[in-house]
């Protein structure tokens, strides 16, 4: 063999290409084994939501949060999959952010409904969604509940969330495409992560939303448990004008549609009881607070866990009943 001439195994262009391809495949497999070993050592697979099957329970539901991105504003505002249908026949709508979605236990509400005949629907939205989005939903689908129950933390009286703004500004076909893309990406990721574990930024929460009652159905792998309660500020200064305006606008809009508004407050680090009382005093709306002596636990430091949400719902409903709202909303 002459100097500089390639050896026999590389003596054709096709052979060199085959060897290069083989090298790439072997590197891929080697890296794959390494990643699996690391994941096994770190015990990541057991925690991965993407590897679990059938995390949701109950009736028909849509995936609305995949650990990366929430899509329920898009689904609801554009009524994709006819999700708003049940909300149209509800007597009581819950409005607010993710805290009220986690706080109202659908099982407890259902038992109460069976006994009292009052139909509830949870129309809260994540990402600290505000009152503007809720009003737009009520108007767009001509929702006419007898009562709306508002989780009265500050975010509800502030601007719409980014997700809410995107849903309000977007077209139905774009929302449909977004949702389909979101669902496809979820299935693709679940498929890929059967063999390739996810090492970085593991999903801690995935959420399905029940079409029947609007409740969030969470699959949680979070270990930031903490006790939560109401926060009370010492000073009882007057409300800033932006909140007064927002509350006035909302109340007027509800009154025009013949809907009564009741306020409540879900315990969380954001739940300022002083602020809620100020809102109630300013607007003349009734406020249902659960006892401040009750202890509640969150799964992530902010949202109530299953046990606490059952307790909160029971306490809320008992006052709801006592104050005669269940009679009014029938």
């Amino acid at each position, binding site marked *: 063999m002459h100097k500089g001439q390639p050896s026999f195994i590389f003596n054709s262009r096709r052979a*060199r290409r085959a*060897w290069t391809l083989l*090298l*790439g495949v072997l590197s891929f497999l080697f890296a794959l084994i390494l990643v699996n070993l690391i994941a096994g050592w770190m015990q990541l697979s057991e925690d991965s939501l993407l590897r679990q099957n059938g995390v949701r329970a109950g009736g028909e539901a849509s995936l609305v949060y995949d650990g990366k991105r929430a899509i329920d504003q898009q689904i609801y505002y554009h009524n994709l999959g006819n999700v708003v249908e049940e909300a149209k026949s509800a007597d009581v709508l819950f409005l607010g952010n993710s805290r009220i979605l986690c706080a109202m236990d659908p099982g407890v509400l259902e038992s109460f409904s069976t006994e009292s005949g009052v139909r509830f629907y949870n129309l809260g939205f994540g990402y600290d969604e505000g009152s503007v989005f809720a009003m737009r939903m009520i108007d767009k689908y001509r929702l006419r509940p007898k009562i709306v129950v508002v989780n009265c933390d500050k975010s509800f009286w502030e601007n719409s969330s980014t997700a809410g703004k995107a849903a309000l500004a977007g077209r139905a076909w774009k929302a449909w495409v977004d949702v389909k*893309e979101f669902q496809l990406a979820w299935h*693709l990721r679940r498929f890929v992560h059967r063999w*390739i574990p996810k090492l970085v*930024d593991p999903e801690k929460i995935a959420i399905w939303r029940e079409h029947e009652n609007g409740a969030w159905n969470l699959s949680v792998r979070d270990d930031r448990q903490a006790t939560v309660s109401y926060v009370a500020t010492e000073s009882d200064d007057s409300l800033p004008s932006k909140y007064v305006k927002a509350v006035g606008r909302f109340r007027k809009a509800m009154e025009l549609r013949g809907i009564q508004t009741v306020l409540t407050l879900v315990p969380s680090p954001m739940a300022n009881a002083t602020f809620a009382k100020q809102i109630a005093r300013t607007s003349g709306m009734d406020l249902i607070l659960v006892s401040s002596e009750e202890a509640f636990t969150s799964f992530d430091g902010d949202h109530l866990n299953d046990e606490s949400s059952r307790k909160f719902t029971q306490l809320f409903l008992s006052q709801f009943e006592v104050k005669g709202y269940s009679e009014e909303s029938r």
Partner: protein
Amino acid sequence: MSFASVSFAGLFLLVLVARCTLGSEKLGRSYFVVLLVASLVFYSWHIPQYLFLLLGISGLNYFVAGQLSAGPHGNRLARRWVALAVSGSLGTLAVFKYADFFLRGTGSVINQVSGADLVWGWEVALPIGISFYIFQSLSYVIDVYRGELKHRSSFAEFLLYVSFFPQLVAGPIVRAKDFFYQWPRRRQLCWPVVTEGCFQLIAGFFFKLVIADGLAALVDAYWGDRGAVHGIVGIGSLSLLFGGQIFADFAGYSMIARGLAYLLGFRLPLNFDAPYIAGSLQEFWRRWHISLSTWLRDYLYVPLGGNRHGRSRTMRNVFLVMLLGGLWHGAGVPFILWGAIHGLGLLMEKGLGVGGARPWKSFSQRIGWYVLTQCFVFLAWMVFRMESAGELVTMMGSALYGGIGLGALSVLALGGLYLMPICGLHVRRILEIEGLIGAPRSPEKAVWAGVMLVAILSSYAQGSAFIYFQF
């Protein structure tokens, strides 16, 4: 439409099928139509109405270029046509990019003077990639005006040049003469093209999804807790992490763009050439966002007089170009400050006569100046990342009076894992320049591609939009 989305994967797959069938040799009218339609769909995916803006800008510049090619070069009428194209294009850019900034600034002054409490501003979604396609359209008009380019007879061809989807939203800013010459050239989808294109794609996605997004999580968390950023080490760590993030993000995008274009039969210019090995600021700007640097040089610095009218005019031109380069990134004091800082740095280098790749004779001097240059570049990134000028004061106070800030080393240690591939890329480039190793060959690329593919699939972080989409 983001490159890292399922809808883009679907669109590209369709175009690739067209490339394998209708455009197997890259020529042919039907393949051209597929590329054009795909590019317009790609652009209108975000906000469909902005497609009319793209068509309007393209139409204006194409019309002006047509007028220029019909008449004699360089006369007063031609200059007026160019002025129309420049003012129309840059005016549109100003309206979308700077009107809100201007209104807010003016409004706050009026509010302070009058004691009113009015809300000023114009909140409008910025059309993605507007700065890029306006610069491309303008370069076409100016090249035709200068007689360096022949006006294309087909508007559709010009529209494809402006809207070609691999580079539409974040560059590289391609010159018409670098694009159109490729058009009639036959280019089959053969093995070297496929492997090189795929390698660029894998490397680009690796830098974006693993490195840039991984660093973004650290930087955002650290930045969100600015009160905790103390001392020289804290600021230094944050600047290193953000410097790594912005490089991986933008260079990653450029690699993806080049890979996509290569698979479709086109070559896009190199946009990054290991900028963090630059031994001077002048060299840094020859390696960082090369297509913008050269655009500013050819269409702004040279027409301003360049270095042809004495030292003080040169200095003025350099500073002005950098200032406008900063402003190009967006309306905001931080961007202007960032441009001004780089402008001042370049003036200092010119004053000392140390610009260029080898400004010093001795090795130790070169190393010393390199370290100084890179400290300057990384600290300037902090200004770029800021949301307001007030943050600069807070951060400087923290650097001066916040102690050493050794607590930041834990964040840097984690971020160091992400910075390693960036360091590796730069070290390899140094060895290439020094002639110690050659350009990577196919077997080496195959190994890296396999490893990076697994890294992408196992270690992609929380997805975020490309930083340069907002420019």
